[in-house]
């Protein structure tokens, strides 16, 4: 009886923690293509589609792979089959204009982690040059961020101070942004209105708050040796990976990770 009472208490306990819950309705979906070079020693470039969802106060930016796998969007999608796969871009960036905060979340199997940054991280210099990107008149702006210098093209025709990845703070949406070495190039693919608006809710009380450095370390640990990481989480305790394969797998992943020497944020 006492046990039942205790369980009931646990189940219906109100979180005493500060509520870090964000709710929004997304009205627009912006699609970018990211061409990037993770290995500075190779000329090979990879590309991925990235999605920026825009709401009144809150926006979310992530790789398309995550959007398709996201249960919230899945409902909006009517549950259709997706063919998303593995991405190299693990961070989801949620910008809150009202609180002037930026939440960066990374999912490493079993757990969502996040770290918080101030929204206005960028000192922009606006230049007078303009051009047209897909019927939008865009203007040039430059900034530097995390060890790279960037050139961005934004449009005042879309009056949201947002853009791909963490970039924001211009008087209009950034349609294109690239670092001077062209290692990371975000280009504009499309902007679509979402009808009906997509309901979005994210509760950071269910996420683990930590630092950018810790997340990078945990993610690296997982990607280098997934079986060990997952087993350390107490999952499938009885299961054992063939040690020879385990070793080969770790060697292959270590090699793959060593080639990822050119992340978007250098410092």
């Amino acid at each position, binding site marked *: 009886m006492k046990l039942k009472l205790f*369980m009931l208490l646990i189940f219906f306990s109100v979180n005493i923690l500060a509520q870090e819950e964000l709710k929004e309705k997304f009205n627009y979906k912006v699609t970018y293509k990211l061409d990037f070079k993770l290995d500075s020693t190779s000329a090979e470039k990879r590309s991925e589609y990235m999605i920026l969802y825009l709401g009144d106060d809150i926006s979310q930016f992530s790789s398309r792979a995550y959007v398709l796998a996201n249960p919230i969007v899945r409902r909006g999608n009517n549950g259709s089959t997706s063919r998303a796969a593995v991405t190299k871009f693990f961070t989801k960036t949620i910008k809150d204009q009202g609180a002037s905060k930026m939440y960066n979340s990374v999912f490493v199997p079993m757990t969502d982690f996040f770290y918080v940054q101030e929204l206005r991280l960028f000192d922009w210099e606006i230049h007078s040059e303009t051009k047209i990107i897909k019927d939008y008149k865009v203007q040039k702006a430059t900034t530097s961020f995390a060890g790279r210098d960037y050139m961005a093209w934004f449009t005042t025709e879309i009056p949201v101070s947002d853009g791909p990845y963490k970039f924001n703070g211009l008087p209009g949406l950034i349609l294109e942004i690239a670092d001077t070495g062209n290692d990371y190039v975000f280009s504009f693919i499309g902007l679509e209105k979402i009808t009906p608006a997509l309901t979005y809710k994210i509760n950071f009380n269910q996420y683990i708050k930590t630092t950018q450095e810790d997340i990078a370390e945990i993610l690296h640990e997982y990607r280098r040796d997934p079986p*060990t990481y997952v087993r350390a989480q107490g999952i499938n305790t009885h299961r054992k990976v063939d040690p020879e394969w385990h*070793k080969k797998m770790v060697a292959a992943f270590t090699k793959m990770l060593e080639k990822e020497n050119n992340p978007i944020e250098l410092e």
Partner: protein
Amino acid sequence: MKKVSFLLILILGVFEGYSQTDISGQVFDDHNKNLSGATVMISKDSVSSILAYGISDANGRFKVKVKSESNSLFLKVSYIGFATFGKFIQNTSQALEVQLSPSSESLKEVIVKSEILQQRGDTLSFSVAAFKGKNDRVIADILKKLPGIDIRPNGQIFYKDEPIQKYYIEGLDLLEGRYNLANNNLSADAVSKVEILENHQPVKVLDSLEFSERASINIKLKKDVTVSGTATAGMGTAPLLWQTKLTPMIFTKKRQAIVTYQSNNTGSDVSGEIRNFSIKYFGENFNIDKTDWLSIQNVSEPPFSAERWLDNNVHLGSANILQRVKKDMDLKLNISYLNDYQQQDGSTQTRYFTPTDTIDVIEKTNNNIFVSKLEGELTLENNADKNYFKNQLEFNGSWNANRGFIDRPDAQIKQQLAHPFLGIRNDLRLLRTVGKQLITFTSNTGFTESNQDLLVQPGQFEEVFNNGDPYAEIKQRVSSRKIYTDNSAGFTKALGKFTISPKFGFSIQNQQLDTDIFLEDGQEVLDTDFKNRTEFLQSSVYFKNSINFKNIEETWNLRLSTPLQFKSFQLEDENFEDTRNLDRFIFEPDFYVKRKLSAYWEAHVSARLQYGFGEIQQLYYGFLLNGYRNLNRYNAPISEEIQQNYSAGLNFRNPLKQLFLNASYSYNFSESNLLYSSTIGENGTTILEAVARDNNFENHSFRGGGSKYFRKMKTTLKLNASYNISKRQQLLNNILAEVNTKSFNLRGSVDAEISSWLIANYSANFSTYTSGFDDSDFQQIETQQHTIDLYFYPKDNQYLSVGGEYYGNSLSDNGDNYFVNLGYQFTFEKPKMDLNLSWRNILNTDAFINAYNNEYYYVQSSYRLRPSQVLATLKFSF
């Protein structure tokens, strides 16, 4: 560190000396609500470039600093969904209030071309060339390296911790879950790409209706016509060992085939490669699995790899053919034949505890097992956009025979068992749209037949069969038949956060059991107590419904299923001229809830009510000689059991500290109308009967565990403990006893990556099992197991493993078992070959000594092992 600034000021083309103007203000919507994130721009006039800008904060406030010589400035405030506000203002510091009015005008859309969304770009498929190492031979070697993919020791493939749904080769599902065969034998050189289809729904009709959590794998080949395969040959000593395997395959656009032949006498399990991992949709209640009515006396198998104890001589042939008949329609045939001859040597000492006595039985066992098994499956599948049809016809036949020889201090007993079996089943699954609803129809029909004969020489149970005098032989004959059909229709519907899936159906099963006992010279025992002519008819009409609920954040996960069934049982026995009937209307609710309490804590609770009714295996009136010293009968009403299960648990997980803890408790209580009575004779002969008498069973189980990963040492430490306590009533030699059991288990392991060339694992397992009657404990056995493995990787193409094991128990005098094994692999680059050397059982331990106990007996056994053996194997792919 980056400078953080809320308002950024930029001035273009300005000269020193201009005075600075501060324009501040607040932005509201038409309901006077603050608008945050509105863009505020200052320019010379409505068309010229931006002089300065700002973005409104949480309170809608903005502040813009302008340096301009112009007398007037143009202020522009915009916000999505509102008309842009524009106004000329004086170039003087001022505070403004701006109210925006809603506008229905949307942003100019740039529609993303659908092929971009649909396309399977490089990120969605993996080029084999990019992942292929020089030591990789078959496609499984590549798959193991792909992110998210994990292959279990039995060969089952998991993606992100979920088993994969389908394994396609060029989009065709040849192997139906027996994908090990392709995965382990298709040369990596023949493959161009591996595609992972995440959230793959293999049934096209369900594509936009039912979300799939599972992924599938598609193997893309380099050529239109591919011929590939692997070959393995191994030799060893002593005695002479061989191991061969040949697996050729061919793939074309419309036809695919994989054939395999394998043979060995090394104790290696060949059936692993044709194991079926497909996810079955039906047939949960009815199947064509074989029922073994009779058996010869066995020694329990050791708990380690069969390669060290199984004395076999096996041949396996398997063919898998797929033909694409027309668009979306495939015909598949999978057929396999296995022939094996196994020898088993050992001895057991069994001690029975009855409330008044203890009885010891010592047996030396020598068994010969002959296995001959044919399995086939013919599948027709039509996977079209508008409907789905799959019909599977399955055939299982086996012609197995066992010969057993028991040497006891006082007697020598021969046993001969023939147990041929035949089973046929047809499974049909149909998906059709009826109105706006997609209905699933399933039909599962099957037939099995088995005639089993057990001959025991000399005959046992002399008191029962021959007035206490010895006699030469006894033969039990069993003839059983079963025919069933189960048909249902159902659908799944999502209603907001809830999903309901009702299902309506009926099933009928008819079973016939005829048994006879013969003594010397085929003389039949005519007493009706030793005969059965049983016909058992079971029918059921059911309505099953399950409701699922998940909230948006997935912090709540609820599942409730509420199956209602009307069950009817009718048992007729011609021999006894008796009929037993039972009609029951049953409700079996099953409830499960999981709640994520915070980022670190999670709790779950479940409750379930279940009914169990007698199966024909516990329904025959007349005695059946199940084994040479087991005589069973159930001359009682149809058994009815009500089970209640409850469980609750709590998990803690801190991934930052890599610490995981869990604890759970579960309670089972069941009530039954039949009590089982065992009468144990002096020489270990056991007569089991059922007696109509209400009784119950109770079990408490506690579990706890934790694991911690030490980052710096790359070491995982794990500890798990469980404790079980149970109580049941039993009639032992006609005395009612309450049998109590207590068991405790502790497991621990350390896995360490000591350096890049050395990995070490250690695991230990300690358990105790205590049983007793009423208040007295009569037996406690402690067993322990320690395993240590070291893996050395001196070079990329070489690998050496050394393993040591210890097994011990507190009961046996010489119960210590030690083992050492060695393995070495060398990979040649040219020609592409793997050489594998293994030396098993280096200490040449000849037998495995084991002990275990049950409610009222314990068994000490000794199993003869394979001697110290060396085996060299060469494997190449083509």
